[in-house]
């Protein structure tokens, strides 16, 4: 503040800067509020998706245990090695206020017994059942992954925006206001000095006359 020249020009410039900072603060606050809406909506969806995915995974592991019991561990492992491990995932993006969040779309996770790739002559139907359950779980996990990645990206942006809003609210705008106050007081002081100087000069002239 000591470096600021107490002039009317500086005062005008500072008032413009306050107006810009205030506009920035208002807009970033709106952005922060919108990000909070997005974040809580995603959290709600993650909660639902997690419950669904965990239920499906537990059903899948139950089916796998049955498969181990019926077919035997070695045969099940062998069949799993023979199975095709390809999954077509279509990755695109969507924007949430400048944040690029992924959108994943999976084409047909559930396959027929023939499409899975293992021999259907040497395996039991319980393996098909377990595979089907895991395929269902995989679909839910892909959806969960999309949501979790979105939440992570939004949380990161929210943190950044919050930091900027706080910097404007607690540091930049108060500092600018304090400088404006200092200049205004200094200008008033100078005006008072001038006034009393003029009065003194007038008194001297009157005394001489």
């Amino acid at each position, binding site marked *: 503040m000591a470096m600021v020249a107490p002039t009317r020009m500086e005062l005008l410039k500072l008032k413009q800067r306050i107006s810009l900072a205030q506009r920035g603060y208002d807009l970033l606050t*709106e952005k922060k509020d919108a990000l909070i809406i997005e974040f809580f909506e995603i959290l709600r969806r993650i909660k639902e998706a997690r419950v669904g995915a965990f239920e499906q995974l537990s059903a899948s592991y139950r089916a796998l245990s049955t498969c181990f019991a019926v077919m035997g561990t070695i045969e099940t492992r062998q069949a799993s090695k023979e199975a095709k491990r390809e999954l077509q995932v279509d990755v695109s993006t969507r924007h949430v206020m400048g944040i690029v969040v992924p959108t994943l779309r999976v084409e047909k996770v559930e396959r027929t017994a023939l499409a899975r790739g293992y021999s259907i002559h040497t395996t039991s139907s319980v393996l098909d059942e377990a595979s089907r359950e895991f395929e269902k779980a995989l679909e839910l996990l892909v959806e969960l992954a999309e949501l979790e990645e979105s939440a992570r990206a939004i949380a990161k942006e929210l943190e950044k925006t919050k930091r900027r809003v706080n910097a404007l609210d607690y540091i930049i705008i108060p500092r600018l206001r304090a400088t404006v106050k200092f200049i205004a007081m200094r200008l008033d002081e100078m005006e008072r000095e001038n006034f009393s100087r003029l009065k003194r000069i007038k008194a001297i002239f009157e005394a001489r006359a």
Partner: protein
Amino acid sequence: MSVDRLIKLELSKLNIHLPKQRISLKDALRSAEPHVTARDGSVHAFKREELELLAKMLPETDWEKLQLPIFISFDLKLGRGTAKIAGDIEVKVVSQILRKEGIGDELLIYRPEVAILRKNLPTTTQYFFMAG
């Protein structure tokens, strides 16, 4: 970089996600991969389920008139937490989702309603920040 330049940079980045050009619902439904290109060059994809939901809500004659994405405009003049939906067809769609009476080509909605709207149409709506 001075604080003013940083603020200006932040403000310029606020609407960078907006599309260069919006597309009609009819074109989006026809497209195999419905999307728009944002001002920063990135791609914003629409979910087909949402497009189908919008198509169900409107008569076929309005599909051409509805421009996507629908903008949820935050105008500083309206005050904190108030957003505006502009356009006849856009107002029609949003008022149906929010079960709110929408007359004319402008509808004011508030933060809880924005949350409901975004929940129903996450890819076919976008935020738009107006400096006032």
